[in-house]
């Protein structure tokens, strides 16, 4: 059985991923998905990569 994986980009925020079982980080390391929806860091500033920890809020949007 295949599960549909849905991805949604949040403006100035993380990428929401539904239906995934694993997420690969930039080094190819697998991270197990343990909740129905996960927020994957898109600002590269999270202390918990690949997961979002809200740090993007301290990154001012006018710098980008």
């Amino acid at each position: 059985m295949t599960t549909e994986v849905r991805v949604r980009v949040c403006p100035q925020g993380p990428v929401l991923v539904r239906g995934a079982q694993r997420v690969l980080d930039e080094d190819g390391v697998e991270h197990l998905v343990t909740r129905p929806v996960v927020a994957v860091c898109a600002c590269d500033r999270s202390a918990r990569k690949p997961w979002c920890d809200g740090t993007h809020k301290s990154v001012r949007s006018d710098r980008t």
Partner: protein
Amino acid sequence: MSVELPESCGPVSHRVRETLLGRATSNPLVMKDQSVTCDRDAQLALWTVYELSYRGFAGVHAGREWDPEVVALRLGLEDRFEGELRDATRARVSAELDVGGDVGDVVLRMARDAEGPNLSAFLRREATRAQLVDFLRERSVQQLKESDPQAFLVPRLTGAAKVALAELQYDEFGAGRPATLHQQLYADALASSGLDPAYGAYVNDVSAVSLASANVMSLFCLNRRLLAAGVGHFAAFEASSSVPSRRIAAGLERVGLDGAVRYFDEHVEADAVHEQIAARDLCGALVAGDPKAVNEVLFGAACTSYLDCLSGTELMARWTGDTGPRDHQQTPVMAS
């Protein structure tokens, strides 16, 4: 296990207690002409009446929930509480409506730009073990019923907004695993810190503002007319959690309260997800279906920031001696 009926701490909570115990009284209830937001007596009375719609009390007949006298007491208190919240947040809501933008963006911006002392930064770096324990105790009245009020919103929503709230609640209620029910994680945090994990254990001890922070959710979620405010409050609440939770977890670790870390650790990643879904999907879908609801969504969101500010100011004053608003003082108005 049933909760004990709280001790009264003034004429209003006394009247509620007597009414729930079936002791008739004909004396008219005269409420003081002062803020109910920061009045422990009024907030305890309201908490007690609301609790009849959640888990009830030992020795109180469940039918008291709809006793006309109890309902009249509740409506009188709610009328004043809601009026004070509207007065305190009117300028902020108006300013945010003027700036405008996508409702999800506005709610996230309101949470990010909230005023008040940086309580979580203090908890992370400076708070003593006793102050962190005090913080856990003050928050217990709302966290031990985490997400319970918002469950009342589900049947009142439709379509994408309903789906978004149900998705969040599934996670809040343990995602299929009783051990990860967020209320249970908080009870575990209390127990591991030497506190009583029982529901309602500290209702006689916490401040008026701590009670008000729990009561505002019941006000919005038990009254269908305040649905949009309940949605906005919840979204702003979720959006005020991820970053503070990370700091609080670090503070708890610093003072050796390791057993309490898990609850806050869980909320770093969980609420980074929840804030996006709550602001963009829940608030977004609600307002897409009813554009006029945006005012009430922002009113609810402003109430989250307002009560957080009052609570932060109160706890910092208690811990550091900095003067700020306390019980029995004029409730400050949030600047725009």
